[in-house]
């Protein structure tokens, strides 16, 4: 059983992982880039090692430097966090080949889920509902593609097998536009992902983004930990998340959750993961599985009372899940606002030094952030400064706490998206709940924002 963990990430998630490790009595080794040298979690590390300059290719994506740091520090496990190398099957293999534990699923699971067609096939086999469309790559035969699209019914969407996060997709309204869209999407997929395979699915007009959190151990047990709604997105980036997903019947969520847990057992999944669905008219359609911890995991922690990172580390140590499905219940409601260093009107990143950092408090308020007054926001990394998370006995109580907390929050010296959050939590449709994934962008367009 490992007693030391190398944290191969930065920012708020590095701090979050470090807190869990320290509570478990594990030694933490933090690797960092040159500009992150002064970060709070670097100072709190049992051992900190610089692995490269600011550019991510030379630091947080530099597999060799991270493996070297693991070797010289004597680390026994690697936690990849989210982003960077967290879904890189080759890195997971290298970590294990070096005799260390990768805190995440096997490389084989990551490969299946990284290929959207293979993932869809695996999910269908496990009984998880998928978007209508064949679970095979489209051939070059245009007539066969036309037939497949006709069977699904227009509008359809063409997607790159190697894509994800909203990239490599094109909507086709009618058969007249199919040929050109096919050529364009195939070429884009080849250029962007090195894999020209594409597939076709039914295009859903006003879906919600709902996801199911799962965790599995290495003894064949898997449970689901409730739903999250992450429909409030801009350019496929989530802005506000909540748990549970509102206005969907408990029985429906339970049925889907059970299928997700069963799919984990069938594919021999281990660790935490998220099944992402589009939901329209109460019907769930699987889109992809994220084989890692998610940015929005705290809303599930607040409603289940389970420390997901701690549980993730324990199952990586070979332990059995410390809870059964019957022990898990959803208590109250939680929201998370992603606080980004960006202009609230044009969304351009806003690097610089934070002069004032005043975060809210009170019952049910949690801040996950590595930032503070005097912290320099680098232009090299994504703009996430931290997360404001609130919990309440009901959605209304949680929303009231969120509104007050956002009013209290003050960050000066750089621009942040706090003003956008304040507007969103006063939006009648968001207050009602259940908005579609297009809601935020439509609202922004109406007010002349990009």
């Amino acid at each position, binding site marked *: 059983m490992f007693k030391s963990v190398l944290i191969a990430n930065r920012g708020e998630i590095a701090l979050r992982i470090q807190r869990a490790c320290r509570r478990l009595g594990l030694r933490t080794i933090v690797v960092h880039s040159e500009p992150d040298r002064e970060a709070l979690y670097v100072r709190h590390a049992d051992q900190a*090692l*610089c692995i490269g300059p600011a550019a991510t290719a030379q630091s947080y994506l530099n597999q060799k430097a991270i493996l070297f740091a693991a070797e010289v520090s004597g680390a026994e496990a690697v936690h990849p966090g989210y982003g960077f190398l967290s879904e890189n099957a080759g890195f997971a293999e290298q970590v294990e080949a070096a005799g260390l534990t990768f805190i995440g699923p096997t490389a084989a699971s990551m490969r299946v889920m990284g290929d959207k067609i293979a993932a869809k096939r695996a999910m269908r086999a496990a009984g998880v509902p998928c978007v209508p469309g064949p679970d095979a790559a489209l051939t070059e035969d245009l007539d066969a593609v036309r037939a497949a699209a006709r069977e699904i019914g227009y509008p359809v969407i063409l997607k790159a097998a190697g894509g994800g996060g909203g990239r490599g997709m094109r909507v086709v309204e009618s058969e007249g536009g199919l040929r050109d869209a096919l050529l364009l999407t195939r070429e884009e997929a080849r250029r962007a992902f090195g894999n020209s395979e594409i597939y076709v699915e039914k295009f859903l007009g006003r879906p919600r983004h709902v996801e199911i959190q799962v965790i599995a151990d290495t003894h064949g047990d898997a449970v689901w930990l409730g739903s999250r709604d992450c429909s409030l997105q801009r350019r496929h980036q989530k802005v506000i998340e909540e748990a549970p997903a509102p206005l969907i019947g408990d029985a429906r969520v339970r049925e889907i959750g059970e299928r997700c847990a069963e799919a984990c057992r069938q594919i021999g999944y281990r660790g935490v993961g998220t099944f992402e669905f589009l939901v329209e008219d109460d019907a769930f359609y699987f889109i992809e599985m994220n084989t890692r911890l998610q940015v929005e995991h705290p809303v599930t922690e607040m409603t289940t009372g389970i420390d997901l990172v701690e549980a993730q580390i324990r199952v990586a140590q070979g332990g059995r899940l410390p809870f059964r499905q019957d022990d898990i219940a959803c208590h109250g409601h939680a929201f998370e606002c992603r606080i980004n260093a960006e202009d609230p009107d044009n969304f*351009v990143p806003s*690097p610089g030094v934070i002069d004032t950092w005043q975060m809210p408090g009170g019952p049910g308020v949690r801040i996950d952030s590595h930032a503070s007054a005097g912290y320099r926001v680098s*232009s090299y990394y994504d703009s996430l400064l931290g997360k404001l998370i609130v919990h309440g006995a009901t959605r209304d109580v949680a929303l009231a706490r969120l509104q007050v907390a956002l009013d209290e929050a003050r960050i000066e010296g750089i621009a942040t998206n706090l003003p956008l959050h304040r507007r969103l939590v006063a939006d009648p449709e968001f207050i009602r709940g259940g908005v579609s994934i297009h809601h935020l962008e439509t609202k922004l367009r109406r007010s002349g924002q990009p």
Partner: protein
Amino acid sequence: MSNPLDHVDQLGAWLKDANLALLELRGPSATLRLVNDGASVRVVEGEESPSVDAPSMTVRAPSPGIFLDRHPLHERAIALVADVRAGDPLGFLQIGPLLLAVPAPRAGTLTDVLVAHGTIVGYGTPLFVLQPIEGEAS
């Protein structure tokens, strides 16, 4: 080969379109940094590569590793105030079974070793100080 400086306008337009804050191109002798502040894209003076004419130079660790001031088969470390040629190994970084030499980036006189033998170092840790060889043009 075309020079990136000839394409700054186009690169700037792409940066704005893609909503990216920064583009940095690094070459052997220069760095081009384009910064997008939302209103406009401007060229920012990049960090310059260390000049070989600098009066003294700190040699830094190129990678994490355990610093060795001598090869494991050698009994003695390189002597201080020794003159070295560009490319001469000044010390080593041990990473498990791997041994990486830390070469002198230029000719000079080794005047200081900044880290004790056996210390774990990270990327960029200052290891040695090199001074120009006396009597040679600085």
